[in-house]
């Protein structure tokens, strides 16, 4: 199925969880946060959060700014 991850289209296995996606991407989970379709998903809920075709995932971290 197709997802949008940080604005880029990505093909992933049907029915994977958010935790699976982060592992597949090689994302270190410290210092990041995730929004699924414009809603924040708490870190504790990553494993139980199933993803669906067309979902928009945003993964962010802090960076330099003023």
């Amino acid at each position, binding site marked *: 199925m197709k997802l949008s991850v940080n604005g880029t289209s990505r093909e992933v296995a049907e029915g994977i969880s958010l935790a699976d996606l982060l592992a597949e991407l090689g*994302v270190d989970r410290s210092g990041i946060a*995730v*929004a699924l379709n414009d809603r*924040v998903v708490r870190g504790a809920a990553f494993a139980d959060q199933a993803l669906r075709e067309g979902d928009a995932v945003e*993964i*962010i971290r*802090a*960076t*330099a*700014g003023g």
Partner: protein
Amino acid sequence: MDATAAADAPLRIGKHEFHSRLLVGTGKYPSVEIMRLAHEASGTELVTVAIRRIHLDDPSGKTLIDYIDRAKYAILPNTAGCTTAKDAVLTAQLAREALGTDLIKLEVIGDPRTLYPDTAETLIAARELVADGFTVLPYIADDPTACKKLEALGCAAVMPLAAPIGSGLGVCNPYSIAIIKEQSGVPVIVDAGVGTASDAAIAMELGVDAVLMNTGIAAARDPVAMARAMRLGVEAGRLAYLAGRMPKRLHASASSPLAGLIGTAHA
């Protein structure tokens, strides 16, 4: 320390308390090491960061936050770059989740050239974020009415600009800043436009509670030296405000007595 400085209360922003009145950014430094040294020299206790997408081609690379000693510095994430209340609110919620802080510098930009805030969107976002439990510090124009509205919505501070972001022009409208401070029940933090130490001192002499700056330090030829200069400027301005300056007068007033002068002119 003299009695006036010793009696100065700490800066209180919501439930947070700071002894430094200088907030600094993390952007535009020549290197993270220079940033680290500049933060140290500035004496700051609160540093701003931006929130952005991770790089999917380097998803576990070191990030800025790895270079900030969180035992020494509290983090103030911003919503810089957002142009709608909706994006700013989601960015704030993501920042809270990523960084474990309720502090948010709310910034909703209305125009990419001047980087002036969108006041209407800022008010909408402020209302939502306060209701969601955030300690909200909104970047806003030097507009006394907008500042009063933000305070009424429950913002923990208001942050009027001294001059456009990154311009280094200093306090362009000291009268507005003074009025904002005079009528504010929450801390006033001058945010943006401070270019050198005298600008910081002028802002503090107006009675504002703190100054936030990034480019003024980061874009100096020697950011570490400028960080110390800014610290001294903020401290000097604060102390001058607390000390109470002499009234300005049009004509001269001799500092030496007129009585006892030699010669004939004063006989």
